[in-house]
């Protein structure tokens, strides 16, 4: 198996830097460079550059999707969800370069993503509905399901990590096996399929993040009605 975590590129002050970290840095550098390009010559009125128009289209598209799915102010979720989508999609685009080691095919990268989602669930839950409303989510339908509800937060985020890792890793392995067997032409359709499924995975990771993070919706309007019924 091509394990990029054990392939050391160089060491800084006796700290080994493996390929996963280096390719993560490359993806980050490309994203920052594109953002700087779009920022250059930005203006509210007048002529907009092509890069700026493209960036605006991407961000607006993401915002509309988030708004549809969360039924909430999209700006609240855009920083987290949009970063996940852009990072995974950019890593996927860069994987068409043969020397590029795609960082999401390492379990440490996807595990870090899932950990961020795990931390974001209580953050947005408390932000949306307060501590009381957030904790109430765990005692729904009955209090006896409390352990299951707590456990489901961990298992669903772990499943997200394993899903992204498995999809990317299987693409890399299929590509390298086909390169050994049939080095001409046949790897090309598999690469196209890998690009397609990589974008689907980026989309799905973002959608699942929105679903988990916005599970506790902002204070409901009919909450007083429920309280009256319970008392």
């Amino acid at each position: 198996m091509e394990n990029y975590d054990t392939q050391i590129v160089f060491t800084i002050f006796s700290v080994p830097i493996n390929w996963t970290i280096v390719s993560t840095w490359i993806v980050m550098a490309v994203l920052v460079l594109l953002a700087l390009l779009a920022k250059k010559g930005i203006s509210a009125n007048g002529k907009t550059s092509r890069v700026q128009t493209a960036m605006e289209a991407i961000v607006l598209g993401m915002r509309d999707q988030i708004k549809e799915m969360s039924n909430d102010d999209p700006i609240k979720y855009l920083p987290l969800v949009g970063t996940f989508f852009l990072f995974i999609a950019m890593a996927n685009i860069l994987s068409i370069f043969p020397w590029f080691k795609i960082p999401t095919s390492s379990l440490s990268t996807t595990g870090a993503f899932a950990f961020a989602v795990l931390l974001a669930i209580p953050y947005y839950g408390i932000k949306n509905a307060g501590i009381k409303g957030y904790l109430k989510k765990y005692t729904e339908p009955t209090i006896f399901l409390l352990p299951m509800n707590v456990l489901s937060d961990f298992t669903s985020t772990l499943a997200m990590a394993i899903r992204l890792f498995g999809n990317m890793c299987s693409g890399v392995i299929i590509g390298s096996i086909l390169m050994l067997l049939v080095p001409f032409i046949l790897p090309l359709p598999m690469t196209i399929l890998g690009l397609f499924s990589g974008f689907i995975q980026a989309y799905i990771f973002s959608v699942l993040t929105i679903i988990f993070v916005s599970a506790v919706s902002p204070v409901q309007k009919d909450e007083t009605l429920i309280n009256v019924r319970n008392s």
Partner: protein
Amino acid sequence: MDMMAIIGAASAFSAAICIAIGGFASCVGEGYAAANGLSAMAQQPDEAGTISRTTFVCMAICETGAIYCFVVAMILIFANPFWTQAVSLAAK
């Protein structure tokens, strides 16, 4: 047959069985999800955006089982804990 041969054969065979059953079952499930999503889209073309989004997410969730099987098969083939233990026992 010595110990190493048994461990190797059992690992290879169980990896094959794992990916076969897991891949088969989750592909059938995913096919059902896609078919129902497509027929829903054919009935209500106006709602195609929402339906396709939900279908994609459902298919990804169905795919999780196959991905687990893939990871287990990869562990059995490339990072087999039983094999490493047998090697370290034999080295003693």
